[in-house]
């Protein structure tokens, strides 16, 4: 990532700073810089909160709380990890706490289905598949189908899927963030991906047919 790289500066305009420089200046009292520090991580923290809460409004609230918490704790940030990694972890903890506080919904039935063992698990069996090109994402219907399917996954599978396949973190980073082993990430990912296939593939095939006909 280069956006913080120091460049030779002119006398006007904001000066690009390294993450460490930015943090030092915030700690020295330049509060306004804090948003600039957070700005590049917005999507990552939002998706992290969303992966737990599956509600945009709740995720947004958690991101704001996590950002304020991070500001208050900034003096204890040691710079061993990247700031974004630290902020994402704070966000994940906040989101999980919020979920525990508000949890009234029972565990989703898919959970039982999956934990009954995957040996009898059957994906959506198709005889053929016609690729849905990414341009199709211009259609709201497609975006909603995908989001709804992600929301249908039980929390532990959704967290792994969003970290790995939406945020595109690697296995080791996902394991570190979620506090589980790499083997567990792979197991959950395998199940999450096949669940997505089972939920989404028949729907996308039907949508694809409708759009190619019409």
């Amino acid at each position: 990532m280069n956006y913080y790289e120091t460049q030779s500066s002119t006398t006007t305009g904001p000066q690009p700073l390294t993450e460490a420089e930015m943090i030092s200046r915030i700690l020295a009292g330049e509060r306004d810089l804090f948003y600039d520090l957070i700005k590049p991580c917005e999507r990552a923290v939002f998706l992290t909160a969303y992966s737990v809460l599956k509600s945009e409004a709740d995720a947004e609230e958690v991101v704001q709380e996590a950002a304020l918490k991070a500001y208050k704790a900034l003096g204890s940030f040691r710079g061993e990890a990247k700031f974004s990694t630290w902020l994402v972890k704070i966000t994940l903890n906040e989101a999980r706490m919020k979920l525990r506080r508000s949890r009234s919904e029972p565990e989703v039935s898919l959970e039982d289905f999956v934990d009954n063992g995957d040996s009898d698990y059957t994906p959506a069996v198709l005889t053929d598949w016609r690729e849905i090109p990414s341009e199709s994402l211009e259609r709201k219907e497609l975006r909603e189908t995908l989001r709804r399917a992600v929301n249908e996954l039980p929390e532990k599978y959704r967290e792994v899927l969003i970290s790995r396949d939406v945020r595109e973190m690697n296995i080791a980073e996902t394991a570190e963030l979620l506090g589980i082993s790499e083997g567990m990430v792979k197991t959950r990912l395998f199940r999450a991906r096949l669940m997505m296939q089972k939920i989404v593939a028949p729907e996308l095939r039907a949508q694809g047919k409708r759009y190619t006909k019409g």
Partner: protein
Amino acid sequence: MVLDCKHVWRQISNYIDRDLDPSVRASVEEHLANCRHCAAILDSTHNILYLIADERTFTLPIGFSERLRARLESELEKSEPASR
């Protein structure tokens, strides 16, 4: 090694991540070449992952950045600067 469909389904995720031993990978590929059901399962899974990774699928809510910035501005004004 001859794999049946269920074994291939178990390997699809690692196959997509290129995280299989060469011998297992070769067996999976051999099965996929001869089983259109499993090939369609792999292709559809791959396609779905490609679509959910696209930034258009999960976007920040409209006004998210502005609201975050406004909240920070109003709260940080009240609070003491973070200190070491």
